[in-house]
């Protein structure tokens, strides 16, 4: 009898306290994971800022879900670009009850984390992971808002072969670098070029003189590097110090403002590819750049993609009128919006449909777009 009274009291208390929350907006947590420490911290911060810009803009419109006002809260975590940390952080976000995740940056982090999100039915939209494997694991929750490495690698390989038939490649042995270079090798072969040497490094190295010397003896016309800008910048400097006049190309990990700063004059003439259109050519680019610069400073690479990833996710929730993944995941799959980056629609694997890839070259210390491959014609 006493215990029944106790239970009745507890139930009554919870009934009374619940409506008190209705006056304040309910919070919906959206996870945002990227490396916030380490050599790629500038890129991770870029992602956080892009997502934050989107979330704050949406919150300012006083959104409602199920008749209740809601506020979206960005739960930011640092995965240090490390696959092990990424899984720990993913589990933490799942335990905290996030309804979706914008992240991660590195394919090497997104792929292991995606398993955890998939097991808990939490949709994940990556603004930067380009490895093909990320969406090809058979999970329903993996999405990305940019072209993947198969398109990027092919574009790089073709362009490299245009510059010269003898192509040397270096990758940093991460899921991203390795995957990209595998595709570049295919692209080079398809365009009739020859891969004269393949060397490896890590995503923590700064000394590449040994491997560059080894490649120099193979007399390449072009060197293609699959990896991030903290390696690409010293690499091109050492390349030039060794007296190698070859062209130097890399993927989106290299095509950043930080590369220009770190490489200095040695970076002149380097070619980098990036999924998506140049910021200036993106339909929402000029406006986004203005809004972003006011609040956060310079755009590195991924901010517009993180912004659109957050927008896509939240808009799917609003369309489904629910934050429960079972309800809004189908809406996510049916997304058809015009984001900052351009038209966004997903194929059945979660890849962006018709994602363009743009090749840039460093001219007078700035990245200038050279060629856009795929996607809808850039205006």
């Amino acid at each position, binding site marked *: 009898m006493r215990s029944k009274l106790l239970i009745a009291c507890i139930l009554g208390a919870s009934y009374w306290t619940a409506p008190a929350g209705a006056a304040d907006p309910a919070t919906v947590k959206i996870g945002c994971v990227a490396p916030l420490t380490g*050599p790629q911290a500038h890129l991770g911060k870029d992602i956080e800022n892009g997502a934050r810009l989107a979330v704050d803009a949406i919150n300012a419109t006083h959104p409602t879900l199920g008749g209740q006002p809601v506020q979206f809260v960005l739960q930011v975590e640092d995965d240090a670009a490390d696959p092990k940390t990424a899984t720990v952080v993913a589990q933490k976000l799942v335990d905290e009850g996030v309804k979706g995740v914008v992240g991660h940056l590195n394919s090497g982090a997104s792929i292991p984390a995606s398993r955890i999100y998939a097991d808990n039915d939490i949709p994940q939209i990556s603004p930067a992971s380009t490895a093909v494997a990320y969406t090809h694991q058979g999970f329903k929750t993996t999405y990305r808002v940019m072209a993947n490495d198969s398109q990027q690698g092919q574009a790089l390989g073709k362009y490299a072969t245009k510059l010269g038939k003898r192509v040397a490649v270096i990758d940093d042995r991460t899921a991203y670098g390795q995957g990209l270079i595998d595709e570049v090798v295919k692209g080079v072969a398809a365009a009739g070029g020859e891969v004269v040497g393949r060397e490896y490094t890590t995503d923590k190295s700064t000394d590449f003189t040994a491997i560059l010397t080894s490649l120099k003896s193979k007399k390449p016309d072009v060197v293609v590097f699959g990896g991030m800008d903290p390696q690409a910048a010293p690499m091109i400097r050492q390349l030039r110090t060794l007296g190698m006049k070859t062209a130097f190309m890399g993927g989106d990990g290299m095509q950043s403002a*930080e590369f220009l700063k770190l490489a200095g004059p040695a970076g002149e003439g380097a070619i980098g590819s990036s999924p998506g259109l140049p910021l200036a050519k993106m339909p929402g680019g000029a406006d986004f750049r203005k809004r972003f610069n006011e609040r956060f400073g310079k755009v590195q690479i991924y901010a517009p993609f993180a912004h659109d990833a957050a927008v896509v996710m939240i808009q799917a929730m609003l369309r489904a009128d629910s934050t429960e993944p079972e309800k809004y995941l189908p809406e996510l799959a049916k997304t058809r919006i015009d984001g900052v980056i351009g038209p966004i629609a997903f194929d059945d694997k979660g890849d962006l449909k018709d994602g363009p890839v743009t090749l840039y070259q460093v001219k007078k210390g700035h990245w200038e777009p050279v060629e856009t491959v795929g996607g809808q014609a850039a205006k």
Partner: protein
Amino acid sequence: MDVLLQQLVNGLILGSLYALVALGYTMVYGILELINFAHGEIVMLGAMVSVTVLGLLVAAGVPVPLALAVALAAAVLVCMATGVLVERVAYRPLRNAPRLAPLITAIGVSIVLQNLAMIIWGRQYLSFPPVLAPHVYEWHGATVSNVQLLIVAVAALTMGALLLLVQRTRLGRAMRATAQHREVAGLMGVDVNRVIAATFAVGSALAAVAGLLIAAYYGIAHYNMGFLLGLKAFSAAVLGGIGNIPGALLGGLLLGVIESLGAGYIGDLTGGFLGSHYQDIFAFFILILVLVFRPSGLLGERVADRA
């Protein structure tokens, strides 16, 4: 053949840098039997300070040679101060503690310095201002840049100055005496505390020079560049014979050459099984081999005589 020569040249440059850093480890071990794991972070501090100061001066229009000299002086001062401070605060209280305590403290100091640097300079990579216009010289098919020649020259000069200090000055004699037998040196009128502080100061000054050279060579500096470098330099010191100054020199050069040649040829040697991304394992592989087969190092250990 010119590939081999180039790899050797690369290795010698790298080796000079390792030797400069290894000297700091070896001197401290010789006197205190302490592996100063924080030494790598002193190098990092030297690099960060010199890059920051140089950047400020160059932006203010100061002529390059003067800016470089001031940056070097600033780095040396900061590193010496840090080294002496660390010794005073972290190691001196543990002078008579069991050997494990200062070792763990050293690791702790390393972590503190890394995080301090991260707080002060942020997590971004700092870039060395492009003040040294690269000229590339050809020599029998190998290319050497003016920066690389500068590194070898400065490293050689610095190490020569150190040898002069240790062999021909009163302080040097006091250092050698303290290294041989601390208590007896004290009895002979050597101010042991001052000598130990001076050892740390000299080692840190070398580290500052190394830091500036590394930043100039690679063009970048960041807060966690000291850790791996410190471990490799320590391996170099062990290879040459810890406590032994010429040993550190030899060990450093040797390790640089082994690493360069190894990274260049490992793919061919193992038939593609191990790739060049295993470049870093050479230092530790050497360390294991040395400790197993010749623990006193190539030129023999030189530590305090406890008889």
